[in-house]
């Protein structure tokens, strides 16, 4: 009687491991058939482009999830970085590299403060980063009294801003590299893929990454083998801050304007991507590959539905439904595999 049992167990293991990826493939096939124009390289790049910024933020959140934390401030860091980039070029009339450097610095600083609040002051992660979120949402609007930043805007002292988004900066958001087809792959996509690769390698294949996972699972035990737990936690928040700042820079470069209303959905969408990542390859824990797949999944879904002319609210609904069903599937199955998967 062992045969069918073993077969079922193998089937189950297969479903847990590849279920989500199969769903993704199925989705792509379905849209390719149902939505004319879906299946072509431009469309694929388009999907990547549409998830690049969310994906970058999601990779940062993943890092904080790995050490058992959570970063609610990423959306606000990204929009702050967007405003800071615009402010430093348009109002302060700085060149592109200064603007980018300032943004990265700001992201690192916010991450450092988040980390210190959590590690030194022992404020629970959700709380510290929620506070930081409100703080940044307010802060980023103070220099311009809540106005968007664009060349020619009137400043508080009555002057008009003379600076502008430099071409080098806009290149970051708008240039496309040739790949087979001319002008195919936009810079943000390349940056997204590079960051995904870096974080995937870092978390999965270096001793630091392994220790970060250990901290997320049992911080005390990790401290007792001599790992600098506090420093790793702070590092995770700094990574998250910097990636969010990169996301903000790319957003600024794509928009060409310091728009205060942009970036509202970044937090929720990137959290969704990171959490969907749990279901990929049956990991049941935060992981960079899963996060990238999660971001891609949401991108493909929205793209496909847009091409099928589905109204915006059905997209939310389907996004939620597919998310719940995919995860039900993975987590339910892996809980059946044995007591190993804990929630």
């Amino acid at each position, binding site marked *: 009687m062992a045969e069918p049992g073993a077969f079922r167990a193998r089937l189950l293991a297969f479903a847990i491991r590849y279920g989500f990826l199969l769903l993704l493939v199925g989705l792509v096939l379905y849209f390719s058939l149902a939505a004319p124009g879906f299946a072509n390289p431009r469309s694929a790049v388009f999907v990547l482009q549409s998830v690049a910024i969310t994906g970058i933020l999601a990779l940062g959140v993943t890092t904080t999830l790995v050490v058992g934390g959570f970063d609610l401030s990423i959306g606000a860091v990204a929009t702050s970085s967007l405003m800071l980039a615009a402010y430093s070029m348009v109002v302060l009339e700085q060149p592109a590299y200064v603007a980018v450097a300032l943004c990265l610095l700001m992201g690192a600083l916010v991450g450092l403060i988040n980390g210190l609040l959590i590690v030194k002051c022992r404020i629970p992660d959700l709380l510290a980063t929620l506070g930081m979120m409100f703080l940044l949402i307010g802060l980023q609007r103070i220099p311009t009294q809540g106005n968007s930043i664009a060349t020619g805007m009137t400043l508080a002292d009555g002057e008009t801003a003379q600076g502008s988004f430099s071409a080098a900066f806009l290149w970051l958001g708008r240039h496309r590299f040739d790949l087979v087809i001319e002008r195919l792959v936009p810079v943000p996509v390349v940056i997204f893929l590079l960051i995904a690769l870096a974080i995937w390698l870092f978390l999965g*294949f*270096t*001793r*630091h*990454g*392994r*220790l970060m*996972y*250990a901290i*997320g*699972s*049992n911080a*005390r*035990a*990790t*401290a*007792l*083998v*001599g*790992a*600098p737990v506090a420093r790793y936690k702070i590092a995770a928040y700094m990574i998250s801050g910097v990636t969010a700042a990169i996301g903000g820079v790319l957003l600024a470069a794509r928009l060409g304007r310091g728009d205060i209303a942009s970036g509202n959905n970044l937090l929720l969408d990137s959290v969704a991507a990171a959490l969907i990542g749990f279901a990929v390859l049956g990991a049941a*824990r935060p992981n960079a590959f899963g996060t990238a797949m999660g971001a891609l999944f949401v991108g493909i879904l929205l793209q496909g539905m847009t091409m099928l002319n589905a109204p915006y609210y059905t997209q939310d609904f389907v996004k939620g439904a597919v998310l719940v069903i995919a995860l039900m599937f993975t987590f339910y199955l892996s809980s059946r595999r*044995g*007591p*190993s998967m*804990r929630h």
Partner: protein
Amino acid sequence: MLALHGLYKAFGANQVLRGVDLTIDAGEVVVLMGANGAGKSTLVKVLSGYHVADDGVMTLAGNAYHPVDARDAIRQGIVTVHQAIDDGVIPDLSVADNLLLDRFASRDHGLWVSARTLRREARQVAEAMGMTLDLDARVAELSVADRQLIGIARALAHSPRLLILDEPTSSLSAAEAERLFNLLDRLREQGVAILYISHRMTDIRRLADRIVCLRDGRVSGMFDQKPLDLPGAVQAMLGQTLEATAIQPVAPGPAVLELHDIVLAPGSKPVSFAVGDGEVVALTGLLGSGMEALVAMLFGQRPLSQGSLRLDGRDYAPNTVSEALARGVFLAAKDRSVNGVVADFDIADNMTLPFLKAFSTGGLLRRSRQRQAATQMIERLGIVCQSPQDAIGTLSGGNQQKVMIGRWLQAPCRLLILDEPFQGVDIGARHDIGRQIRATAKGRATLVCVSEIDEAIEIADRIIVLHEGCIAGEQYNQDIDLGVLAAQAAGHG
């Protein structure tokens, strides 16, 4: 190697260490004995850089030693296996990762973790300890014993100057413990200094070169004359002599629990026995003996595969924990930190958790009655604490264990199952708990699962030895031959 002088440590108003003086030499095993709450683990945590002493001098090989954190201590060659098993393992990582965790934390390790080297090195560490685990298994899936072994194996692989083991055998079987002892022998020969903490006399007899007794935060005795004076050491650690109370087996009343042809392990012979009213039966056996399965069946956590159970003459087949409780079957589970202690609660709430209904009127809880009941139980079991409102996390391990036992002694029941009730309990407290269990045994059947035969003899009227799901021996607790029992447990009966 290591010398301590006048070490002080207090937690708030609780002065735990009050001037500890201690030296440990290279190539020596010093056993630290002390009642629960004497301050042993606190001393260990000071040595390993987890706590900072309030006062005192420490020198390591002649140099001042003041570790700032665990990392610093490890770098200076002091490696510790902590008492709490969960402080030694990462549940969500694989066995291999766990075995090499400290290497990841060291700067000497390269940046990259290669799956192949990881596996090779982990296998070496595991084999040194005689472990045959699946290296890819997640540690969360392993038994407590395996988890404890992993923590120990990792520490031993470290070639430390001073190795500290805080109750390393609390969840190990005799065979596993023996493997550990052999390894410690080898390290001792290599000149490693070893500080060993245990409540188990077998361990102490087997290992100690010297015994140091700790009482109320001070060294209360030191024994280095061979043969070591164990009764003297016990007296020094407890401050009183412990009269060996020989058990007078009571005649069992009518059968309360009956097992009929229960299969404990796949493919093994069915088991039948009965436990009578007022009787205390100890079950003992090695890993895989089926004890765990039996407990799970009795407490509604696992369906009966075959056979039947009867409780008070009526069929008994619980499907859930609450069904078991409704029939008057109580279980004090083993592995208290996972299965028992509610860390956010104080003693009173922990103690009364199963019986909250009895402590409430009109839906509202009566705090005063909870406290009153807890205070009584604290007195009955001699729990060392400031008040019933102490957070449970501030108690020493042994005292937490007493709270867990006390939890289930508060209401009368038909069948009381105690699974490893003496885990981490000092010898004096063991007597206290044993006495309480025997004193209250009338009116119920009591089943005690212990892996130490010594412990079985201290408490039971009758001892049943299990081996691979079968009864390998059964004996009334009178004129027992320990050797025979041990042989039966090992399957050579």
